[in-house]
Structure formats: C-alpha cells, structure tokens
C-alpha cells in the first residue's frame, strides 16, 4: 500500500497519558527533534497538581502539546491535529481539544474495563461509534512494547515505562523525523544504565518500524524548516530563562546573585536552576517560608548582592510587608511572580494573569514599585535582565510578572553572547565626605548604595519614614509628604529609560488589541490572521506596566476601539481607563488556560463587525 506524503505549514500534536506514563519526556523529545530539524515551535506541558493521582483517573492525566511549523509559531496551538492517548482517561480529557477530523492514536491496552471505569466511560469509545468524526488508529502499544523487549528479561514495570517511546517512534515516522536525536539523548542521559538505553532505543525503533510496516497509516506529513534567524538555538522554558537572565544580570553588574526563595508551584524551577549555578558564585537560600525568603534577599541586598526572590501569587501575598520595606529602604530587589490560578491556593498548576493589581497596589501606604511583564518564554530572559537593571539603577524593588504558561512553556531561544548584553554595573558609594544615605541622583532620583564594610559610611536604614537626604527618622508632616512624592517620582522617571511602545500592524485604525504578559502569542496570531483578511486591527503588547512607556497616550487615540484581552476579570483595563480615560473593552476568560487565538479572533470580528 502506498503512503502519501502531505506537506503541512504547521501542526499541533498532543501526547496524553497517565501522570506516570512519561508524557512530558515524550513531548520534550519530540520538541527537541523538531527544533533540531529547524521548525519554529512552541510547547505547553499540562500536568496535574497531584504527583501521582490514582492510576487511570481523569485527575491523573498528564499532557504535553507541541505546535511546530515552517512558519512563525507564536502559541502552543489552540486545538491539536493529532492526539496520542495512552489510556481512556487521557482520551476523555483531551478530546475536546482535538480538531474535527483530527488523528487519534490510542493505546488499546489503556481501554480495558478498569481504565474505562476510572475514566467514567460506560462503554468503550473505541467501539461505540462516538469517535466517528475523527481518524482513529487503535494500536496495542503495551503489547507491542512487551514483544519488542521479550528477550531482555526486564521487569514488567520497566517494560511498561518504555511504552511511551513506542508512541514517540510512531509519531517520528508520521512526521518524518529521525530517531537519532533521541537515541543520542538516551545514551547521554542514561549512560550508567545501559539496559535503559538499550530498551528505550529498541522500543523507539519498534514504534517507527511498526508505523512504517503495518498498513494502518496512509498518510505521512512533512513539516519543512522554518525561516528562523541564523544562529545557535536552544529550547528554553520561561522559568529557565528567568534563571539565566538573573545570572547574566549579576555577571554584567559585577555582583553576586543571591536568591531567597521558598518552593512553590509553578516557580520552583527557578530555584532549582539557580542552585545549579554555584560556579557563578550564585547563593541560593531555601528559606523556612515566603517571608524569610524575601527578608533574606533584602539583607543580602543591603550587603551588596543582586538580590532576588521568586514565588507565585500566594507567596507574594505573604511577602507584601517586606516589599514595603524594600520600597522604604530603597534597596534593589527583583521579585519574580510566576502567576497561577487564584485566589488562595487556587489552581497551582494552571495559568492566570490575576496578580497585576496585587503587584501594582497590594501594599500598605503609598508604595510604588515598577512592574514588568514577560511576553514569551524566551522574553523571560530579557525581562529578568531588565528587571535587575532597573532595580540596581533606581535602587528599588521591581516586580517581574510571568505566569505558569510562560514558566513551563518553551520555545526556541536564539542564544545570545555575553558581549551583546549591556554592562549594568554601578559603583558603590565609597567617599565618606558629605555622605548622606538618602541623597539622590539628580536624574534618576536613585539614592546611592553604600554597603557595610565601607569605612566612614556607617549608617542605619529601616522601615520608618526617612528625613529627606539625611535618612534619619522623621515624623515631620511636610517631610513625609515630600518623601511620598519623591519615591513616586523616582519610579515615574524610569519611563525615561525604557523603550517606547511599538504597535504591531498599522499605527492607526479601527481596533487596537492591547495585551500584557503570556497572552502575547495568542493575540499576535489572532491579529495577524485578521489583518491577513484585510481587517484594520493592530496589536500593542505591554512589557512595562509601571511605569508605562511614555507614548501610550499618543497611540491610543489613533484607534476607534480598544480591546484588552486578559486572563482575569479586567486588571490592565482598569489602569488604562484610569490613566488615559479611554473606553476600552475587555475580553476576559479566567479558566486557568492560555487564550486560544481563535477566541480572540472571534472577539475582534465581533467588535469590527459593529463598525
């Protein structure tokens, strides 16, 4: 039987199985191979909060989605074209994300009576016709894996844990990818366990050969390399990018990096990554709680380190008082919030953008803090670097907002060189003559950084109101009013030092879509598609939310309507309305999931239809 090869510009596939089925590894291997083949891509892991939910249940389904193509890829894909389901629960959970007519590859062994019951199916969806609108390929992956390893004398547990690579092998065949990249990875990763290397390679090839030999698949797909800028690339998650950006900032500031952190989903990977960078002098401190984490960072900052604390929403709530101390003592500090679903414990492994107002306003007193937001996983690198630059230059705590989607999602990162990054070092104060702890730079309003160990600069700082310049305690009413205004002005002046906002698309028109943070890819894709259809719509993505770029007020009046999609009930929109008196329209869904570009497209259509 002849196999037809179709060329696709882009495709989205999703691997789904039980949380013990190795779906994250399968997905990241497919990603790595596709990256090496030159595709642009974006990925999103989707795992349950429970480490091991009961086997076969809906709560235990772990998924990994990858969107790759020969064109620019901005999101992990709204809907998948191909679903690999290792059991009944994985099928049930993920079916609604599959396009009509999409391909389903199922492991039939995962559809026994017990699996069906755990997934809440009364009868097998494989035999009752309920999947008739899809192309279903049932394969007994477990059995075939067993056969491939029959002579290796492995325990049934080890065999079972290999079956994901059978599925991976089939997908490599279907999308015309070579197995070599994964073979090399196995050899490196399990160098000390030759049995694991051997069994996985065998099963991977068995999957590939099975698809090649057995007459079930009639179509293979070819996805050509994308036109990416030349250079070295690396697939990077947002959390890893933050860690790299912070190390880079410390090096370029000629300071040691100090991280005070308390483990919290989905931010812990930043702590893990940084604790591996001791050869850069990075000090990581896993504190007893969120408060001690930020407090230790403030102490380190007083001592002259580039100090950082990383957390997610509930952790930030605990840190709040200490953020105020950093504002008052005017010490540099980077606070990374990898946002997750809230309120309270909320949805720890899901994404959300509902901590913006907390970052802007969630403190006692007039407590201005710069707020930055990364827009893509690789942008997390640059925004972490930028947060550190601003913190050091302006002697202030700075919030960097990312989210669970950016933190765990990945995309190819064009690897920079150290030489491309700016020097952000700033000398400490050493001259004791006329030293006043709260004397300021005329331009930036930043006070000088004088660290313990410097003779003649002994001084005391703290949370009580400071006398202007002298820094001693002051209860004077006029002084308090003055200091409140000075601290606000200092943060406002950062606007002189950040890039002007740039509109993607025409600089005037019917509709401007304004986003911030992790919704970049979905908005970008939606706007581009509508523009391709001739619609007058542009996109503005804010990476600096406090202060905002100075030209926002000039951009907004050039559009008839303004749409602000956010994964919250309308937080940036409040700020825009307040600052610019603009009648912006919100699009808000708070489902713990990233936006689909199609839903934003629909909203754009709805608004432009009325013009």
């Amino acid at each position, binding site marked *: 039987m002849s196999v037809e090869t179709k060329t696709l510009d882009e495709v989205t596939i999703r691997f789904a199985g039980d949380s013990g089925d190795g779906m994250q590894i399968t997905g990241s291997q497919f990603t790595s191979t596709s990256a090496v083949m030159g595709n642009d891509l974006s990925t999103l892991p989707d795992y349950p909060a429970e480490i091991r939910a009961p086997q076969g249940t809906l709560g235990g389904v772990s998924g990994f989605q990858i969107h790759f193509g020969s064109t620019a890829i901005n999101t992990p894909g709204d809907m998948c074209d191909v679903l690999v389901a290792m059991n009944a629960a994985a099928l049930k959970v993920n079916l609604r994300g599959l396009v009509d007519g999409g391909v389903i590859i199922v492991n039939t062994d995962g559809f026994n009576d017990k699996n069906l019951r755990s997934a809440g199916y009364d009868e097998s969806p494989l035999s009752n016709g309920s999947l008739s609108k899809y192309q279903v390929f049932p394969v007994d992956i477990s059995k075939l894996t067993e056969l491939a390893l029959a002579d290796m004398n492995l325990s049934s547990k080890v065999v079972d844990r290999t079956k994901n690579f059978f599925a991976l092998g089939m997908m490599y065949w279907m999308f015309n990818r070579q197995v070599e990249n994964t073979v090399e990875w196995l050899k490196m990763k399990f160098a000390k366990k030759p049995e694991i290397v051997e069994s996985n390679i065998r099963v991977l090839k068995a999957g590939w050969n099975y698809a090649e030999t057995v007459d079930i698949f009639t179509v293979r797909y070819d996805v050509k390399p994308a036109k990416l800028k030349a250079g070295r690339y690396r697939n990077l998650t947002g959390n890893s990018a933050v860690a790299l950006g912070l190390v880079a900032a410390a090096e370029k500031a000629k300071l040691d990096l100090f991280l005070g952190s308390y483990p919290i989903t989905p931010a812990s990977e930043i702590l893990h990554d940084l604790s591996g960078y001791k050869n850069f002098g990075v000090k990581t401190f896993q504190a007893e709680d969120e408060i001690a984490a930020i407090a230790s960072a403030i102490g380190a900052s007083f001592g002259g380190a580039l100090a950082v604390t990383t957390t997610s929403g509930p952790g930030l709530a605990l840190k709040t008082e200490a953020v105020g101390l950093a504002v008052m003592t005017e010490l540099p500090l980077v606070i990374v919030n990898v946002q997750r679903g809230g309120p309270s414990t909320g949805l720890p492994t899901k994404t959300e953008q509902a901590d913006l107002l907390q970052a802007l306003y969630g403190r006692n007193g007039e407590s201005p803090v710069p707020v930055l937001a990364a827009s893509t996983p690789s942008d997390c690198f640059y925004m972490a670097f930028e947060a550190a630059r601003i913190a050091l230059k302006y002697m202030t705590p700075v919030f960097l907002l990312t989210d669970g989607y950016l933190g765990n999602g990945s995309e190819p990162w064009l690897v920079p060189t150290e030489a491309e990054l700016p020097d952000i070092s700033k000398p400490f104060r050493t001259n004791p003559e006329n030293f006043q702890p709260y004397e300021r730079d005329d331009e930036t309003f930043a006070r000088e950084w004088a660290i313990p160990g410097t003779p003649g600069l*002994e001084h*005391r700082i703290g949370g009580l109101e400071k006398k202007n310049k002298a820094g001693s305690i002051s209860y004077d009413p006029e002084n308090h009013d003055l200091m409140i205004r000075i601290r606000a002005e200092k943060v406002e002046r950062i606007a002189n030092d950040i890039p002007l906002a740039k509109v993607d698309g025409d600089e005037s028109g019917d509709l401007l879509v304004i986003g911030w943070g992790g919704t970049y890819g979905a908005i970008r894709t939606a706007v581009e598609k509508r523009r391709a259809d001739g619609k007058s719509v542009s996109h503005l993505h804010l990476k600096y939310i406090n202060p905002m770029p100075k030209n926002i007020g000039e951009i907004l009046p050039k559009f008839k309507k303004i749409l602000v999609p956010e994964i919250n009930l309308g937080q940036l929109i409040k700020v825009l309305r307040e600052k610019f008196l603009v009648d912006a329209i919100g699009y808000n869904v708070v489902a713990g999931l990233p936006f689909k570009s199609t839903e934003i497209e629909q909203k754009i259509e709805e608004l432009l239809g009325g013009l």
Partner: protein
Amino acid sequence: MGKLVDDVVTQAEHASVKYVAKDFASDQEVRWCPGCGDYSILAQMQRIMPDMNIPREKIVFVSGIGCSSRFPYYMNTYGIHSIHGRATAIASGLKMARPDLMVWVITGDGDGLSIGGNHMIHLMRRNVDLNVVMFNNQIYGLTKGQYSPTSEFGKVTKSTPQGSIDYPFNPAALALGSSCAFVARTLDREPKHLQYVLKRAAEFKGTSYVEVYQNCNVFNDGAFFQFTEKETKDDSVVYLEHGKPLVFGKNKDKGIKLDGFSPVVVSLTDGMHSINDLLIHNEKDSTLAFIMANMTYNAALPRPVGIFQAIERPTYDGEMSKQIDATISKRGRGSLDKLFASGDTWMIQ
C-alpha cells in the same frame, strides 16, 4: 562576594582599631523611657565593642520592631531597623551574602518569639553565624502593655483583664530544642555578667542566643527584681560557670545536685552534702543544658543564669561558601557564553 563588593571591602583602608566605648555611640538621641533596662544593654554593648578588634564598618546591627529594636540607631555601625519579626531572616541573608561581616540581631520577646518565632527556630537549627540578643521584659512595651509570649500565666494586662490564659515560652529551652549552638541568659542589672556573656556570644562561631532579662519600668516594673535586687538575688539565682559546681545563696551555702535527672537544692551546711555532690556545669553537654534550662519556671529552684550551652558545629554561611568555592575550584568560574549554549542546542544557518 562579587567583584564590586570585593573592590570596596578589600581595597578599603580599615582603621587600625583602637576604639573606646563612645566611638560606638551614634549621633542619635536615645529615646527609651527613663529607667528602662535597655540603657544598660546598650551601654554594655558599647563597652565590649572595642575589645572585639573589628573595624566599626564591618559590624551590622539588625532589628525588627519593638522598643529593643530601636537599638541599631544608637550604635555607630551599619544597621537595619526592619519589620516585625524578620530581623533574623534579614540578618541571615546579609551574613550569607557577606560572611566577612559581624552581624548582630537585636530583638525582644514579642519580635523574636511571637511574630518572629518561626524565623528564630529556623535560624537556630541552621546555625547561621549571627549573635542574637533577645531583650525579655515579659510584656509588649511599644504597643503599651499587652502580655507577651513570655508573660506568666494569669498575667493581668490591657488585653487580658482577667489574667492571661497563655502559658509562657521558656526561651532557653526553646533555643536548645531548636538546636541552637550557643544559648545563654543574663540580666540587665548585672553589667559585668552581661558584658561577659555578650563577649562570649560575639566570639562564638555559629548562632549565639542571649536572653537578657530586661526591666520595663513602665509596663512591667519589677518582673525580674527577685533575680536582680540585693535582698533576694543571691538566693534566687544560680550562675552557671563552665567546669564549676552549681553553688548559690548569700553565703554560698546552697547547691544544685542531680537526683536522677532532676535537679534539687541541697544545703552545704547541714552536713548531708558537700560541694563534691553538686552538679558540675559543662557547656559542651547538651543533655545537661536541657536539664538546667528546665529549672527556669520551677519555683523550688533558683533561676539559672549564664551560658547553658556552647557547642560549635559547621555554620550555614560557612558551608554555603564552601560549596561555592568547591564548585568553582572543580569546574572553574562560570562563563556566560558557555552557560547560554549549554543543553540541547542546534544551529540554524
């Protein structure tokens, strides 16, 4: 410590240190209530500082909130007057970043044992090389007279008009239970002993914890008079001295001996016991330290004062620096270009 910090610290010309106590007094007017026990603690601290032989600029005092936490303003060193309960955590971060500094934490029974209790116990088990001075006045002074976690059961205060129904912490036992390496108790009205204990705490490598009984003459006057006033103190306090028997009493006529694991008071004049029967204090014996700390609220026993325990072990900040040094000597100082290009990378032509 980072190149810029190195430049400042190592290139600095530190004063050849011949200080006197008043070199450590800042230009700030001291604003505790007249008669407050804090004055004595400040004076003793300033008195021992010249003996430390450490340049003033290498010393930092960190405090939280409360009357005692004003302390850093009055020391002519570096200092942070921070937020309630967090001084221990802030000082820990500072010491980790800057192991070259001598860092003190000034706290009280509210700041250190109530709102900051969690950080305190974790500091102790971690053994960061800090010196903690906990001013225990058994009352909330700055908020004008509520009971504290060391106030006695039944204490009548503004917030407990019918008497407190909270049991107090025994700070020394809490510290020992938290694996604190150096645990001591002293008194604001015994300046010589206070100086001795502060000095020992400063010299000790690791977390040193000094509880100071401090009189709040406005909201809890006389809380410790039994242990500090002439008429009663000799019979009410037993001083712990390393290698010496536990003797007390106006005429040194009483002692503590162990009956099983329980300390009991014996007379040295009734012919039944001699000094040879008494418990010998040993700072290196943590079991003994627990027994003596637990004498604290036992009305039949004198109040133990002195150094309960001084057992050095590797410090957290020291181990942290060691791991970094070992990594750098093994792998070399990191290069950003190598770091960026590590992991799975690929070239696009």
